[in-house]
C-alpha cells in the first residue's frame, strides 16, 4: 500500500480539509461580509465530497483495497454511506444558518469553516479502524461542535450550552480514553482487527473494564440514556441551525463509530456487550418517550425525541448481525431527513418581532396562518411517531423485524409499547397546530431573504419522509445490505 493509494482513499476528507483551510483564509481577509459567499463555497465542497462517496456506496466496495494508512482508516461502503448522511446533514446546517444568524446579527465567516472541519472529523470517525483514528476524529468533531454551540456568544443560554457541552464532552473523552488505554493494555494493539483477534476467547476482567468504559464514552456522544443529561440543555441553548446539526450529523457519526468498534474490535465478544446495548436501547426509548411529555419548548421536545430515536437505532445494534446493521442504516437514513425537516419547519416560523418561535403553545392554529409549514410539520410528526403511511414507519419496521428474527421478541415488544407512548406528544403537536385557536404568535410569512432556500430544503426533506419514500425502499435496502456486508467482511 503506497502513499498515493492512501491519499486517493481519503479524497473526500482531503477535499473538505483543503477547502476548509482555503475558506479560513478568505474569512480572515474578507471578514464577515463574505459569510454568505463562504457558506456557498462550503456547500460546494460538501457536494464534491458527497459525489466522491457516492460510487463507493453504490458499488458496495469493501475489502483490503479500501484500507488506507496501514489499517488506520477504511473507506468502505459502510463508512461512505454514513458519510453521505453526514455531508447531507452538514449541508442542511449551512443552508439553515445564514437566514437565522443574520437576523440576530451573529453570522460570522467562521461558521461554515467550523461546520466543514466538524464534517471532516465525523468522516474520520466513521472510517476509523484504529483507536487513535477514532479519538482524533471524535475530538475534531467535538471541538468544532463546542464552539458552534456557543456561537451566539452574547446570548447567555448559548454560552451556557457551549460550556455544558464542553465540560461533559471532556469528561466523556476522558472516560473513553481510559477505556481505550485498558483495551490497548490487554490486547497489545490499537488496530480494531488486531484487538478482535487478541480478545478472542474468554474476556479478562481488565479488558471487560476497557470495553465498558469505551462504550460509556461513546454512549455520551450518541446521548443514550443514562448518559443523556446534557442533551436537552445543549439543544435548547444552542442556536437552532446548530441544534438541527447536532441532532443529525454527529448522531450518525457516533452511532456508525460505535457499531464499528463493537462489531470489529469487540466482534468476538458479542455476549459481553449485547446486554449493555439492550439496556441502553430500552432506557433511551423509555426515558426519551416519557421525558418529552412535559416539555413546552420545541427544541427540548426534539432533544428527547432524538434520545428516543437513538434507542430504536440501538435495537438494530443489539441484534449484532448483518441484518441488524442494515436495519440501523436504513433507520438512520430516514431519521436524518426527518429531524432536519422538523427543525426547518420550526425555523421558518417567526413572531411579529421577527424572533424565532420556540414554545409549543405558540404553534396554536398554525394550519390557518402558515398552512404549508403546518402540513409539513404534520408529516414530520406522524413520521417520527411511526404512523404507517409515512416513511418513518419503515425505519421502525425494519429494526423491529431484525430484532424479532434474532429471537429478541421482548426487546421489540417493549420498543413498540414505548413508541405508542411517544406517539402521544407527537400527536399533541399536530392537535395544537390544527385544532387550537390561533395564538397570534406566528405571523404569516413575509418574503425574507433565505426563505426560498429554507422552503426548498423543507419540501425536499418532507418529500423523502412522505409516503413517496416507500418508492426508495428497494434501493435503500440493497445499499444498506451492501454497506453492512462491507463492515462484517474483515471482522
Amino acid at each position, binding site marked *: 500500500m503506497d502513499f498515493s493509494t492512501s491519499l486517493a482513499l481519503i479524497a473526500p476528507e482531503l477535499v473538505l480539509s483543503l477547502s476548509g483551510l482555503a475558506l479560513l483564509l478568505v474569512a480572515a481577509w474578507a471578514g464577515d461580509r463574505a459569510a454568505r459567499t463562504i457558506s456557498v463555497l462550503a456547500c460546494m465542497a460538501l457536494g464534491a465530497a458527497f459525489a466522491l462517496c457516492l460510487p463507493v456506496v453504490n458499488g458496495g466496495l469493501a475489502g483490503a483495497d479500501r484500507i488506507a494508512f496501514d489499517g488506520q482508516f477504511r473507506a468502505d461502503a459502510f463508512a461512505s454511506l454514513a458519510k453521505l448522511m453526514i455531508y447531507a446533514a452538514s449541508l442542511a446546517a449551512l443552508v439553515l444558518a445564514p437566514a437565522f444568524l443574520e437576523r440576530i446579527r451573529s453570522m460570522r465567516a*467562521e461558521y461554515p469553516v467550523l461546520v466543514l472541519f466538524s464534517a471532516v472529523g465525523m468522516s474520520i470517525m466513521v472510517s476509523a479502524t484504529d483507536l487513535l*483514528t477514532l479519538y*482524533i476524529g471524535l475530538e475534531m468533531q467535538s471541538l468544532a461542535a463546542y464552539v458552534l454551540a456557543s456561537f451566539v456568544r452574547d446570548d447567555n443560554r448559548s454560552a451556557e450550552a457551549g460550556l455544558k457541552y464542553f465540560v461533559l464532552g471532556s469528561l466523556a473523552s476522558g472516560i473513553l480514553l481510559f477505556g481505550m488505554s485498558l483495551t490497548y493494555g490487554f490486547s497489545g494493539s490499537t488496530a480494531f482487527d488486531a484487538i478482535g483477534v487478541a480478545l478472542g476467547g474468554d474476556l479478562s476482567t481488565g479488558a471487560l473494564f476497557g470495553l465498558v468504559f469505551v462504550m460509556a464514552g461513546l454512549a455520551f456522544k450518541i446521548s443514550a440514556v443514562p448518559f443523556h443529561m446534557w442533551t436537552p440543555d445543549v439543544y435548547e441553548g444552542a442556536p437552532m441551525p446548530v441544534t438541527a446539526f447536532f441532532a443529525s450529523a454527529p448522531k450518525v457519526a457516533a452511532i456508525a463509530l460505535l457499531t464499528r468498534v463493537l462489531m470489529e474490535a469487540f466482534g468476538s465478544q458479542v455476549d459481553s456487550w449485547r446486554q449493555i446495548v439492550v439496556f441502553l436501547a430500552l432506557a433511551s426509548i423509555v426515558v426519551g418517550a416519557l421525558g418529552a411529555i412535559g416539555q413546552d419548548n420545541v427544541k427540548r421536545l426534539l432533544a428527547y425525541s432524538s434520545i428516543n430515536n437513538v434507542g430504536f437505532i440501538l435495537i438494530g445494534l443489539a441484534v449484532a448481525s448483518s441484518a441488524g446493521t442494515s436495519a440501523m442504516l436504513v433507520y438512520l437514513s430516514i431519521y436524518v431527513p426527518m429531524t432536519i425537516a422538523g427543525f426547518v419547519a420550526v425555523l421558518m416560523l417567526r413572531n411579529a418581532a421577527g424572533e424565532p418561535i420556540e414554545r409549543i403553545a405558540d404553534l396554536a392554529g398554525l394550519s390557518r396562518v402558515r398552512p404549508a409549514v403546518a402540513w409539513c410539520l404534520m408529516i414530520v410528526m406522524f413520521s417520527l411517531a411511526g404512523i404507517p403511511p409515512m416513511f418513518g414507519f419503515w425505519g421502525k419496521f425494519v429494526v423491529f423485524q431484525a430484532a424479532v428474527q434474532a429471537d429478541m421478541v421482548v426487546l421489540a415488544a417493549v420498543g413498540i409499547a414505548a413508541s405508542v407512548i411517544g406517539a402521544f406528544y407527537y400527536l399533541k403537536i399536530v392537535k395544537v397546530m390544527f385544532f387550537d385557536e390561533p395564538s397570534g404568535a406566528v405571523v404569516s410569512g413575509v418574503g425574507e431573504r433565505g426563505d426560498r432556500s429554507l422552503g426548498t430544503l423543507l419540501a425536499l426533506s418532507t418529500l423523502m419522509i412522505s409516503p413517496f419514500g416507500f418508492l426508495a425502499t428497494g434501493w435503500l435496502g440493497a445499499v444498506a445490505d451492501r454497506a453492512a456486508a462491507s463492515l462484517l467482511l474483515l471482522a
Partner: protein
Amino acid sequence: MLQAIAFYLFAALVLLSAVFTILARNPVHSVLWLILAFFNAAGLMVIIGAEFIAMLLVIVYVGAVAVLFLFVVMMLDIDFAELRASFMKNFPLGIAIAAVLLAELVLGIGVWQSGGLQLGVASGEAAPLLGRSNIESIGALLYGRYLFLFESAGLILLVAMVGAIVLTHREGRAVRGHQNIGKQIARRPGDATVNVRPEIGQGVKL
C-alpha cells in the same frame, strides 16, 4: 561504573529536592526545588538511553508546567521585600545549585555517550532500530506510519485556535466612553422629564 555513579547522584538529588519541595517555607522556593527535581528526573531518563523523554520532561514540565506554577505562586501574597533582603544570604546556595546542575550536565552527556544503563533484558518484540537514536525513530513513525493522524491532530489544534478566536475576539470598538453627539443634541426636554402626581403613601413609580 560511571553510569552507577551518575544514577545514584541523580536519584539522590531527585529525592532530596522532592523533600525540599515539601519542606520549603517559601512557595517560590518550593517551585524552584520542584524544577530541580524535574531536571534530575530528566537526567535519569538520559542514563537509560531515553533522551527523547528527557527532553520532553525538560521542555514540557520545566518549560511550561513549572513556569505556570511559578506564575500562580507569584500571585500569592508574598513579601518580596523580605525575599530581596535575603538575596545576598541565599547567594552562595544559588551558586552551589548552579554548580551542581553544571556538573550533572557534564556527567549526563558523558554517560549518554558511553551507552545506556541496562535495566533488564529486552523482550525482543520492540527491538530498537540499530544505528538510530530514539528521536529519529519517533520522527520516522510520526511522519511515516502515523502521518495521517499527525496531520489530523494539526487540524484539531487549528480548530481549537479558530474556536478560541471566534468566541473571544471582538472588533475594536470602544466599549465605554462612547459619545454620540448627534443623539445628545437631538434630545428634547420632553423625552427626559415627566410630570407625575403620586398618590399619598404610594411613592413614585418609574
